[in-house]
């Protein structure tokens, strides 16, 4: 019984962590390539989840159709975001990048509140009431699907960053801007792509989580800060680090909620983040995209 209990907690945590990783990876990628902390990242995740809800509930899309549509739109939104706003920031405008993306987050979040109110919506798909039993433990099918999407995203991102020219160029720009210029990489093209992929990932996250949690305009805001903590714990700009930190945090949170109380879970990410900041501060700001 006790072993099953721990196993179930570990499984819950693993699933939760992979879900976190999905949001954190995009944030980390954008930071790595552009050195911008994107406060609006959570809003893109929220809008994607909203989109998924409306497509499945109102527009007659099947779940997978909605996932594809939402992801595609998110990638386009990323392109536009870079061309319209982020391009205008210089690399050293850390504070301005926070203010700019915070302004964007205010517009998107409160615009969503105005249009749809904070009333939560539940996305129901054909998988909503199914679950998967693995020996002594059990997990909801929608979560397993979210995990599958997370793993697919991570593997794709890995493949793109390591086995395509443009992916390598992305890592290149993050590692050494001058060298990128030397070999003829246009930083603008690469940055634009990084934002598109980053926002696209948050789109996948929104679509993957819409059936898992209730969907409402404030869902992104809360999630964003946890993603921040994960990105910082994993090492800013380090996509693989973020993924590992996300899974670790998911498991820790799950164990904490199993053995202590939910109250502990709320602050865990932030306390860990501050500890990491204090212990290894200098490795955090800077560093290229490493996967």
């Amino acid at each position, binding site marked *: 019984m006790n072993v099953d209990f721990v196993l179930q907690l570990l499984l819950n945590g693993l699933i939760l962590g992979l879900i976190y990783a999905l949001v954190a990876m995009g944030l980390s990628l954008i930071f790595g390539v552009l050195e911008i902390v994107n406060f609006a990242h959570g809003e893109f995740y929220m809008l994607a989840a909203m989109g998924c809800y409306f497509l499945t509930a109102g527009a007659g899309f099947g779940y997978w159709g909605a996932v594809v549509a939402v992801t595609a739109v998110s990638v386009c939104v990323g392109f536009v975001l870079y061309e319209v706003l982020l391009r*205008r920031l210089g690399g050293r405008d850390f504070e301005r990048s926070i203010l700019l993306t915070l302004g964007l987050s205010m517009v998107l979040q*409160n615009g969503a509140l105005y249009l749809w109110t904070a009333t939560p919506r539940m996305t129901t798909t054909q998988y909503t009431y199914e679950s998967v039993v693995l020996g002594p433990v059990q997990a909801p099918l929608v979560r397993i699907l979210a995990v599958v999407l997370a793993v697919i995203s991570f593997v794709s991102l890995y493949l793109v960053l390591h086995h395509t020219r443009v992916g390598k160029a992305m890592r290149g720009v993050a590692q050494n801007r001058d060298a990128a210029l030397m070999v003829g990489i246009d930083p603008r093209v690469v940055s634009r792509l990084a934002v598109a992929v980053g926002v696209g990932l948050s789109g996948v996250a929104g679509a993957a989580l819409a059936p898992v949690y209730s969907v409402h305009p404030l869902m992104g805001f809360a999630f964003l800060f946890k993603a921040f903590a994960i990105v910082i714990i994993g090492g800013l700009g380090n996509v693989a680090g973020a993924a590992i930190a996300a899974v670790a945090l998911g498991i820790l949170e799950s164990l904490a909620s199993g053995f202590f109380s939910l109250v502990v879970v709320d602050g865990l990410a932030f306390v860990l983040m*501050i500890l990491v900041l204090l212990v290894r501060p200098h490795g955090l700001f800077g560093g290229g995209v490493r996967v």
Partner: protein
Amino acid sequence: MRRAPALATLALAIAAALPFLIGDAYIYTLGLTICVFAVLASGLNLVYGFAGLLSLAQVAFFGIGGYGTAILVVDHGWSMGPAVLVAGVLATVAGLVVAYASLRLSRHAFAIVSLVFSLLCVIVARDWVSLTRGPMGMPGLPSPTIALPGLPPWQLSGPRDFYILLLVYAVAVLLLLYRVMRCRIGRTLLAIRQNEPLAQSMGQNPLAYRLFSIGLSAWVTGMAGGIFVFHLTIVDPSIFDFYYLETMLIMVVVGGPGSFWGVLGAAVFFSAIPDLLRFSADLRLVLYGLVLIAAVLAMPGGVAGLLRRRRLRRWREARR
């Protein structure tokens, strides 16, 4: 900008005359909102505009002041005056700890850590139920009494009384901040913001100045929170709402970081106008967000920055 002090004096005279002229609670509520935001925005201006530190902990200072005062008054029977002062000191201590720990690393770390500090404050307020009453907050705060020596005790019971108190408080704080910003200390802060190594080479200690600005800012912000919750008659975790922080940031960024009058003007404008125009809260924040984006992209120095650029052009022309 030359006429700003005269304008401010006139505005102050009108503001001071209001309680004797009309009895409209709505105007008082609006007035005291302006007073509170004038303090909050000017406090942030000292930290961001002068010391160059993007402090996302201002809302935490505000909340710590509010909770601190409420707990001291309700649970420990303090009277409001000392409770507000001590709660302000509490906010200062919190600010200094956050700043000292993170400024050792970098300016960027400070921004991130101050944000996380605000988030942790929400969690403490929600989860440390025995101290803060949790999400239910502490409603029904008593009408406080202020006893000044030589005067009959003054019980603050309605918007009018809080308006008077907050007006006095805001004027005092603004005078204090004005003096700090305009004297050698303010100039040194600006110098450190513009060029930290150069200031160091001139014997200035940036950390000391930065800690001072954060401490002072936290103190006035915390005390504002302490008074404000008694006007609201309640303190709950929503005092840490990002709304306050976003509003402060708008006021400073649009008014012009580093400009006393610019930020003060923006504070009055952004507290009064949306309320008068009766936007829904959501729409107001959408508008604020757009203003923030526009200000960051189009006028990095805010309104005051535009005026400064005009002056600079005149100098450049004179040089030719």
